[in-house]
Every structure is written in C-alpha cells, then in structure tokens.
C-alpha cells in the first residue's frame, strides 16, 4: 500500500542501497557469472574475429574445394575452398550487428506504439490497442515473411522485417506495463496537477517501465537472433558475398551428407548465443529482483519424529465402545512447528461434538488429521487413532464410513465434472455399483439433501449451483455410503446467514436419519450450541476444555472458554456496550514458554500458570478442563489443590 501512495521521487533514493547490493550479489551467482562470461566471449569474438581471421575466411583455395574436416581446416572447406571454421568465427560480427540493430528497431517501435495509447486521445489509443491485438494474433514468422516480401530480399530488408515483426509483441507488453503504471496514484496525482502528456510519459511512465522493458528486449534479442538466422537460412536474409550464421547454414545444408559438422557449427553458434541472451535476461531479472532466487529446500522432513513410539497401549481403548478414540494426536510441520500439540478426544456413536477455538488454534488440522488429509509437509502422529474399531494408521481406508464437509463449497467441488458424476464415483469405487446404479443413487442422494429436480441438477456442473446448494451437494456426497462420522469443517462460514440455517438444519436431519456422529468445527459458538451436544475448546494446539453444550453459556470453567462466550453478543446485550474482546493474541505455533499458553492473556493467571502447563483433567461429571484455577466451584476439582473460589466471588 505504501508503494502505491509514495511519490516516484522516492524510488531512486531507495534504488541506491538494496538493488546495488542485489546486483553485486547476482554477478556472483552461477547464472550471473555464466552470463557475464558468455557476453564477454561473444563480444571478443565479434571484435577480434574479422581482424584475425578475416583474410583466412575470404581466401579462395581452388585446390581444397569441399574438403571434410582436417587438421588444416577444422570444419572443412566450402565450394570455393574457404575455411568454414574461420567463416563461422568471422560471421559473429555481422550476425550480432544485425541482431542488435533489429532489436533496437523492435524495442523503439514497441515503446512508441506501446506508450502511444497513454499519450494520444482515447479514440486513437483504442485504435492502436486494437491493431496491436490483431497483429499479435498472427504467428511471428508469418508476419516476418510478409514483411520480408515487402522489404525485399537482402540484409537491409531483413533487419527491418525482423525488427518490425518484434514490434507488436513488444507494444503489447509495454501497453500492459503502462496501463498498470498509469493506474498508480502518483500518475493520477500528476494528471490532476495538470502535467502535460509528454512530460507525464517522460517523467513518470518511461522510468517506471524501463526496467521490465530492457529485460524483455534482452530476452527478445535471443528470439531475434534465431529469427534472423532463419531468414538468412531460407535465403531471404543476408545475401552473398556477405554471410552470417544463417547464410552459412544455408550454404552447408546441401553438403550435410558429406560434411555434417560444417552445417552443425553455425547452428550451434546460433543456439549458444541465443541461450546467452536468455541467461543475460535471467541475470538482469534477478538483479532487478523480479524473480526471487530459488528458496532453500525446507528442513529435512524426517527431522521431527512424532510421538509414535508408544503404540503399545491400543488394547485398553478397544474395549471402550466409542466410535472415535484419539490419544495424544499431534500435527507437526518442518522446523518444529507443532500445530496440534497432543490432543485426546473420544466421540461416541451418534454423538454431536463441536470443536471451537480461534483461527490458528489447530482445530481444522485436528479434523484433517482424523481424516488422514493433513496437507504436505505436515505430519500426523498419535498414540491412539482409532475409528470404528480400526487403527487408522494401519488401515487408513476410511471408505464410505467417514464423510467430510469442507469450509468453502465454492472450491470443494471439481469445476470440470458434473455434480452427479462426482457423487456417483464414490459408489462406483467403494460400493462396487455399476455406472447406472451409481448415477441413480447420486440423484437420490441429491434429492435427500433437498436439491430440487435432482436428476437434472446431477447433470449440471458446480458453477450452476448456488453456494448453499454446493454445500448440500458436498453433504450428499458424504451420504453416498453409510457414514458413521461426519466431519464438518466450518461448513457454514462461507455461506450467507439465511443459507447457514438451512445447512445446519440439513446436518441435523441427516444425523437423525443416518445415526451418524458429527464433529463440527466452528469458531461460531452459536452454531455449535445449536447443533452439538458436547463442546471441545481448543487453544494454541491443545484442548483446554471439554464440556456439555448446556454448560457453555453459564458454566464454563476455563477462563478462555468464558472469554469466548463473553465475546458473543446476545439479543439481550445492550447495543450501546462495546463488543467484548480477548486482549492479546494467541501464541504462534512453536512459541511455547513452558507454562499455560493462555496465561499471558488471562486476567486470573498467577505464578504457577506461567511456570507449568496444566493437563486436561476431569472436572465434575463428563467434563474436563486444563486450568490450574478454573472458574466456579465443583466438588471433584481434582486438578486444583487450592480452590480459587474466593477470588472469583470478589
């Protein structure tokens, strides 16, 4: 933002420090070194070649006509007995001269034509833009041949033809660049101040587009070299007795059967010089900071070993009849970032559990870890990870018993496939249904989530669905099998309020019909309170409280849960009171002081809270809390030795 509003005069001053450093740095990179060496080498050959080898290249030797390569003639001789190696070296100068000349014509023409729309009136500008648009639609070589016809065969004609052929693409680029610069605030300011058009171009537009233009011209020079060589190769460019690389290739092609090196050498010269131009462009781009240097490879992925070693205790949990059992679930990222720091939870069959917390608390990653969908390079580890009696790590094929509903229904469906197809494939892959059966079931399921005219809708693609309908379709996708657990990750966040309620009602209905359990991830306490029976509160990668939803409004024991609840305005809140917020910010993953992670933001925190982290421990019946000094009193406050009750009352 500051970039848009600052004046252009601020640019040169800044350009003094960082870019100069960057330029010096670029010169030391392999690309910079290679580009510079190549440049010097080619320049040296171009300058010295004709001086040193000029006579040798021109000497006609009738005794040595059409010889193959030998010690005397490295690449053999041509039909007049002239040394081909010397001719390739000597041709460097003319080839480069013509290339640079054509590049200059193309760049100047492109700049003039590209800036013109900004200078001329609107109508003329449009005409130029449209003309360039039409010209760009034709292949470059065709335009080149057209111009070569007009300018006639020969060096001069070819320079103009090649140069002018470069004008439309350059003009297109410059137009795009000027359009972006012309929209900037300082140009608008200059315009309002009444700065003349030409002055505007010279003072404001050209300096700002100079760098990318030069970059483009360098890279285009490689293309020009090839185009010019092609033209000469076709016999339309340089004419004898002059010769460039293309002309040499043209002369030697007929003898490729006898002396292939003679034809390959000028070709190789063109390729290498073309690559050099490309490298110079690359180096300039790096120096200008247009392309960030390749980032260092991430730290070795296996460095962080998740706590997996204690896999022995899977036995005791199996007896527990619950659907999902998770103990010490961790999600780690390279560099020791722990997004989920060891959470334990259980979900009973048919139970609806809400998982709440601020963004970044790890709730979505916990859900993805359950479904084995943690994005790369994150790694999941757990002491116990069981779903429906199977160890998820040993047998991760969740098949159709787990359904996922994602946050953004706009992105969750494949835009290229019909909705029906995306549903049907679940049945085809997992239930062994035929195509027709699967399609019928897909339509049936779409009807079950109350999508009107499901047969017709199944043949449509996602973009023809509204946001709410897409979320329904995603839910229907989960209903293709017999889901035992539905994981819904912020299913209503991306939807507008009216549609939110419909989707929530649908989830409740689906649960009633199928008997599936629900894990609802949300930052919206109202949504969770409405749908769920039990709430898990996450903070900084840990579960800090586990309580029945009925207790959420009044009986929360963890200060963080209390703060979350307090931050939700209710209908009875006086509209005049400011919205309650939680002071401070949640800790970054990996920022772990050893104490309770909420302590820095907690107004009840004492010394102990900063020194040691409380474990999630039982607190009353069916409740757990991770706090040294939970709010309120309960008989079985096991984790608490000194009851903080006195303080709460006052």
């Amino acid at each position, binding site marked *: 933002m500051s970039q848009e509003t600052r004046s252009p005069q601020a640019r040169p001053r800044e350009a003094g420090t960082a870019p100069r450093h960057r330029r010096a740095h670029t010169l030391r990179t392999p690309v910079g070194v290679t580009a510079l060496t190549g440049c010097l080498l080619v320049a040296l050959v171009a300058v010295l070649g004709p001086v040193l080898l000029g006579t040798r290249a021109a000497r006609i030797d009738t005794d040595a006509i059409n010889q193959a390569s030998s010690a005397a003639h490295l690449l053999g001789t041509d039909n007049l007995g002239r040394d081909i190696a010397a001719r390739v070296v000597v041709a460097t100068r003319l080839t480069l001269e013509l290339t640079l000349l054509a590049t200059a014509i193309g760049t100047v023409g492109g700049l003039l034509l590209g800036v013109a729309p900004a200078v001329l009136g609107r109508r003329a500008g449009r005409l130029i833009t449209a003309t360039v648009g039409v010209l760009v639609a034709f292949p470059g070589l*065709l335009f080149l041949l057209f111009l070569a016809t007009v300018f006639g065969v020969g060096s001069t004609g070819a320079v103009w033809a090649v140069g002018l052929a470069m004008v439309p693409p350059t003009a297109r680029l410059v137009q795009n660049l000027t359009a972006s610069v012309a929209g900037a605030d300082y140009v608008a300011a200059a315009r309002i101040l009444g700065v003349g058009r030409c002055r505007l171009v010279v003072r404001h537009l050209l300096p700002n587009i100079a760098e990318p233009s030069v970059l483009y011209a360098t890279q285009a020079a490689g293309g020009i070299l090839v185009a010019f060589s092609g033209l000469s190769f076709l016999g339309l460019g340089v004419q004898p007795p002059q010769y460039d690389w293309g002309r040499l290739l043209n002369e030697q092609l007929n003898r*490729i059967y006898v002396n292939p090196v003679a034809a390959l050498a000028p070709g190789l010269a*063109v390729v290498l010089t073309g690559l050099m131009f490309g490298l110079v462009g690359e180096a300039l781009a790096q120096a200008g900071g247009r392309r960030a240097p390749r980032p260092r490879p991430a730290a070795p992925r296996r460095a962080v070993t998740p706590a997996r070693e204690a896999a022995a205790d899977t036995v005791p949990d199996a007896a527990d009849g619950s659907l999902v059992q998770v103990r010490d679930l961790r999600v780690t990222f390279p560099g020791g970032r722990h997004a989920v720091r060891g959470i334990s939870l259980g979900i009973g069959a048919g139970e609806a559990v809400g998982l709440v917390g601020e963004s970044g608390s790890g709730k979505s990653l916990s859900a993805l870890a359950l479904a084995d969908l943690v994005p790369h390079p994150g790694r999941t580890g757990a002491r116990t990870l069981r779903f429906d009696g199977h160890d998820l790590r040993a047998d991760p094929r969740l098949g159709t018993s787990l359904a996922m509903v994602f946050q953004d229904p706009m992105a*969750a469906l494949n*835009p*290229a496939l019909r909705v029906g197809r995306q549903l049907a*494939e679940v049945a085809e892959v997992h239930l062994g249904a035929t195509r027709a059966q699967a399609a019928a079931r897909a339509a049936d399921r779409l009807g079950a989530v109350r999508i009107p005219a499901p047969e017709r809708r199944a043949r449509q693609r996602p973009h023809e669905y509204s946001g709410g309908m897409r979320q329904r379709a995603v839910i229907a996708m989960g209903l293709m099998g017999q889901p035992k657990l539905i994981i819904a990750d912020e299913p209503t966040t991306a939807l507008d309020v009216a549609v939110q309620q419909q989707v929530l009602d649908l989830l409740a209905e689906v649960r009633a019909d199928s008997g599936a359990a629900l894990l609802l991830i949300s930052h919206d306490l109202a949504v969770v309170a409405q749908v769920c029976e039990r709430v898990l509160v996450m903070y900084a990668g840990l579960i800090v409280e586990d309580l029945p939803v009925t207790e959420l409004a009044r009986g929360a024991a963890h200060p963080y849960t209390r703060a979350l609840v307090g931050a939700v305005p209710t209908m009875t809140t006086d509209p005049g009171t400011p919205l309650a917020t939680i002071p401070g910010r949640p800790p970054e993953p990996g920022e772990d002081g050893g104490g309770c992670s909420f302590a820095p933001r907690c107004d009840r925190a004492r010394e102990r809270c900063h020194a040691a982290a409380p474990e999630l421990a039982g607190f009353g019946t069916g409740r757990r809390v991770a706090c040294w000094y939970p709010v309120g009193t309960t008989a079985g406050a096991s984790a608490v030795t000194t009851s903080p009750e006195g303080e709460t009352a006052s």
Partner: protein
Amino acid sequence: MAAAAPRPLRLLRAAVRSPWCGFALRRTWRLVVSLAALVTAAFAMIHLIPGDPVRAALGTTADPALVAARRHALGLDQPLLHQYGDFVGHLLQGRLGDSIGAQMPVSQIIATRLPATLEIAVPAFWLILLLAIPVGMTAAVLTKDGRRRRGELAFTTVTGVLGAVPEFLLAVGLVAAFAVALPVFPVASQSGPASYVLPVLALTVVPAATLSRIVRVETLRVLGEDYMRTARAKRLPARLRYLRHALPNLLTSSLTLGGLLFSSLLAGTVLVEHVFAWPGLGTTIVQAITEKDYPLVQGVVLVYGTAALLITFAVDVAVAVADPQSTVRGS
C-alpha cells in the same frame, strides 16, 4: 413490454443475454475483424512494395509491353478501391489470381502443396499433445510438494534447453544424427513413411518441451486445489484422482497458454520444410518470395494466416466448452 412480446422474440432475448451468446459473439467478431485485417494486409502487400512490383518480378530488362500486359492482368492499373473490391470479390469465389512465375492459378498451386504440409503438421500436433500432457503430469506428480528436487531440476533443464533450440536447427541436428551419422531415415524429400519421421519429430520436440513445462506447472496448481482434497477425502484411487479430477482442469488452462504454440507450429513448418526439401506450402512461399511471385505469396500468406486464426478460435472454443466457468466470467 417484454411480457407482451411474442414467444420467439422473448427466447431470442434470453439467448442474447446468456453468457454463451455473449462469448460466441465476442469471439466471432474478433475472428471476423482479424480475417478482414488479414485480407486487407494481403491486398496491401503488393502496394507496399517499393517501386513497381511487376517490373521487379519480371526483371529490369523485361519488355515494357509485357510489363504493361501483366500489370493489366493483375488489375494494378485500376483505381485502388476498385482493385480492393475485385480482390475481395474474387477471394469469396475462391480465386486468388495467377502466379507470375508458374502461370498457374494460385489456388491450384496451393491445392497441390497444402496436403504435404498438413501431412506433417497434423501428426506433429497430436504427437505434441500425446507427449507433453503425460510427461508434464508425471513430472508434476513426481515432484509435487518439493519432492525430488534433483529430478525437478533435470526436468526443467532438459525441457528448457530443448524449448530454446530453434526448430530448424533441431531439424538440421536430427538430420546429422539420424540420417547421416546413423543412416536410419532419409535425409530429405517426401517418399515412404520413413521420410515423415524426422520432419514430424523436428516439429514436435520444441513445442512438446515447452508445453510439458506448462502442463507441469498447471498440474501442480491443480493438485493444490480444494477439490483435489475432496477427491482424497473420497478415498479415490490415484488413477481416478489424476485422470478424472486433475486432467480436465489442467487441460483447459494448459491449452489456453499453449494455444499460441499450435499456431506457431504451422509457421514452423516453413523452416522445417526447407530443411527437408518437403514439397509443402512452406517451400512454396520461400520460393515465391525469392522469385518475387507476389500473387503466390499473397495466396500462401492468406492460407497460413487463416489457419492460424482458426486454430486460435478453435482452442478458445474448446477451452470454453471444457470450462464453462471461464466463459461465464467473460474473457
């Protein structure tokens, strides 16, 4: 008012308002304008040539009576607008005038030469797609999420260098390698099936390398999309995830970016034909330019230009059909 309108009219209005119609109108309009520009440029070419094109074509020693007669035959003694009208009129009847050198109708020359060009351009087109898409996708799958950094570097280096080599130099290299050093294929000219191999390869390798790079980047983009996570959540086998869910999505964007490759493929035939002395349109236009046979150049330029515009149009339409969303958004 609208309610009172007769039913067909209402349907028409609805159709005009639909994004598809807007798209079709825009693209067709662009095609028509470009074609008009092409025809005008082809017409203007002969007038842009400095000096007298007929004199240039016949040589400075030509009989003035002959020059005048030829000029009359080409219609160059008519007023400019009249000539233009005639040119367009004849074009609509499929008449492109007579070649100065060969004394034959240009359309006839093109009809005999065009098949040879298509016989190498069309297989090259399919080969590019058949090579670039699987190679690019495989490279993306193998190197996703920063895996196999060395393999990634090798892929980008090889395709980068191949993509930077001009087609005609590659053609010369191929001849030197597979016709001279290892005499497997004929050096030049159109004969048996073996003579097609090198020209088609020369046309294929460079665009295929460039396109496979594009496909790789597009595949990496698609693999990071939410709907690919949905496909993973559905526990679909890898084959279905890549072929059914990723391929259509990366195809549309790759084709949009690669569309230009196909029109330049057509132009690339000019140089490749020259290397292999292939009796196609490319050698015809080069010969015509050298011999200053302007009507013939006009005709071939029209054929190439029209073909390039039609290819671009076809790619646009194909992308629109495959990805209706981009059409609705308007482009």
